[in-house]
């Protein structure tokens, strides 16, 4: 259902016009769109609209890579004798992401709360965010593991996009959501329309405890049982649109004309990995899988909201699909909700 405060869809664009528009975008920006790689759909840059995957599958990875890349060069450090030069490396290009889903865009809003809204602002993330425009696509139906509606989202929610498309009658209904979006469609052949499309949202897939009900669950034995099969890999954090833990290191680059060169990079890390909190000297306060898994879930639903405001889950369901041992976040949320009610009864 489209909420009452949404603008009605104002425009219609044909499939062909859409292709032309995307092609014209590649002249002045990097176009990032879903593509099929040996059966895996991923958001990757492309300069050829023929490579775009127009199907309806959810991409295996979220759009977070375009804003918070797996590895990012923060600065280059040059040394020659006592001389030192440090050069910051900020993102300079423009990006347009096509076919972002509401859960992807909601993920960016969640990351905004830590990287932009909370001081100090992260220069790298905010530059990429400023330089990127989102063209969203409504999901025609929720996937088997999707639960965005339980996380305050919806398959048709345009709020976090710049432009929102909804497939209709061989083309797309197009809604301009932001000024950035308005700028991007300038000159594109659009037909005004007053069609309104109603999409039924499936609610109640993942009942979740209220924030205040989380603290007593920290001591439950449930975490030990759940974590027994956990592999301590990093899949769930890496596919997640909102996970953002990172590591920072200096690494050597080839010498440049007598200068030693190093790059300071940051790259993805996950709190589920065994050595995540190990300090030099060897002490590791989160040395069991249960402690790590519990921290991850609490971070998303209790710690993050306390620190930055939103819940750090968009209900995209990627972690459920990708976890090799079926650690299912909706199953554990359901379990916790049942425990909360049981304790209340």
């Amino acid at each position, binding site marked *: 259902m489209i909420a009452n405060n949404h603008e009605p869809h104002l425009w219609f664009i044909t499939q062909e016009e859409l292709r032309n528009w995307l092609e014209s975008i590649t002249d002045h920006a990097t176009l990032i769109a879903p593509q099929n790689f040996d059966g895996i759909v991923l958001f990757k840059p492309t300069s050829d609209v023929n490579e775009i995957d127009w199907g309806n599958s959810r991409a295996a990875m979220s759009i977070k890579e375009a804003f918070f890349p797996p590895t990012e060069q*923060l*600065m280059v*450090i040059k*040394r020659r004798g*006592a001389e*030192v*030069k*440090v050069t*910051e490396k*900020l993102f300079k290009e423009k990006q347009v992401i096509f076919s972002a889903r509401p859960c992807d865009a909601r993920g960016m809003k969640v990351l905004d709360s*830590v*990287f932009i809204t*909370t001081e*100090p*602002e*992260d*220069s*790298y993330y905010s530059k990429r965010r400023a330089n990127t425009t989102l063209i969203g696509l409504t999901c025609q139906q929720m996937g088997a593991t999707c639960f965005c509606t339980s996380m305050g989202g919806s398959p048709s929610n345009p709020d976090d996009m710049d432009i929102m498309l909804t497939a209709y009658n061989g083309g797309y209904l197009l809604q301009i959501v932001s000024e950035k979006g308005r700028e991007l469609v300038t000159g594109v052949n659009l037909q005004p329309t007053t069609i309104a499309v109603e999409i039924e949202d499936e609610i109640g897939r993942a009942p979740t405890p209220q924030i205040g009900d989380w*603290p007593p669950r*920290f001591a439950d034995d449930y975490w030990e049982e759940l974590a027994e099969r956990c592999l301590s890999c990093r899949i769930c954090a890496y596919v997640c649109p909102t996970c*953002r*833990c*990172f*590591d*920072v*290191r*200096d690494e*050597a680059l080839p010498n440049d004309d007598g200068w*030693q060169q*190093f790059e*300071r990079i*940051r790259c993805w*890390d996950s*709190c589920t990995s065994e050595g*995540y*909190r*190990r*300090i*030099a*000297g060897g*002490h590791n*306060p989160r040395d069991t899988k249960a402690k790590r898994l519990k*921290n991850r879930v*609490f*971070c998303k639903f*209790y*710690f993050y909201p*306390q*620190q930055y405001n939103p819940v750090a889950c968009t209900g995209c369901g990627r972690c459920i699909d990708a976890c090799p041992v079926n650690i299912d976040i909706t199953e554990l949320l359901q379990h916790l909700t049942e425990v909360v009610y049981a304790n209340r009864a």
Partner: protein
Amino acid sequence: MLTEPKENPMLPYLGKLVSVKDLGTEIKFIGVELLNGGSEKFAHYHPGQFVFLSALGVGEAPFGIASTSDRGNILEFAIQRLGSVTTELHELSTGDTVGIRGPLGNWFPLDEFKHKNLIVIGGGIGGAPLRPVIQTVIDNREDFGHFTILWAARHPSLLVFTDEYDDWSAAPDTELHLTVDQPDATWDRNIGLITELIERVAPSPENAITITCGPPIMIHFVNKMLTEKFGFRPEQNFVTLEARMHCGIGKCGRCNLGEKLVCVDGPIFTMKEVGGFLESFI
């Protein structure tokens, strides 16, 4: 060279090592002078705050500032050699360049401690962030009540700031007690754990504040003794905690203890706050 990298909180200022000396076994004490900016930020930093020091080309790590801005503009740090960054820092000599980001974190609310009796308890290299507290109290002696310094280490070679002990004990209404777990041939002071020393000194909780820094397990047992044996309330016991960090500015998500981030909500906490964390700090 950069000037005043205010915009990007991940960019370091550059600093020059102006002094390097041995402080103990595998512990060096370095003094750094800011080179290309940051003098405004570091004009008035507070006891308890920390920085990220870069061994340029290896990486960064958090270090408590062991000096006070009231005594000069050289930033001092005690570095214990444990991993790749500290090993590289130990290789440096005067004139070498390091990176600095900061000052970061919260600080000891010394204003709230005025006219109270202070008990400072330092274990091993944990003494480093307590040094600016001691220096500030000594420099403003009339503002504070009775001053007790309890200083411990596993071995005499690991006791830090030994050449300052005379200055500390010379301050009015101040007592300094030392203890080691394992003595050496020339040791003539107390032998035993810090908790045994506390028992002997028997501090009173009346109008008192304790400040402890050391390994987590030490903090735990010190607090236990102070509260259970001597009647201190947990809110009277201040501690500085550590955790693995990579940004120091609340972005990388790593240093959380439950819903608190050690880098921005800490590193200074009262034991009452620590007791309320969902996650154990040990």
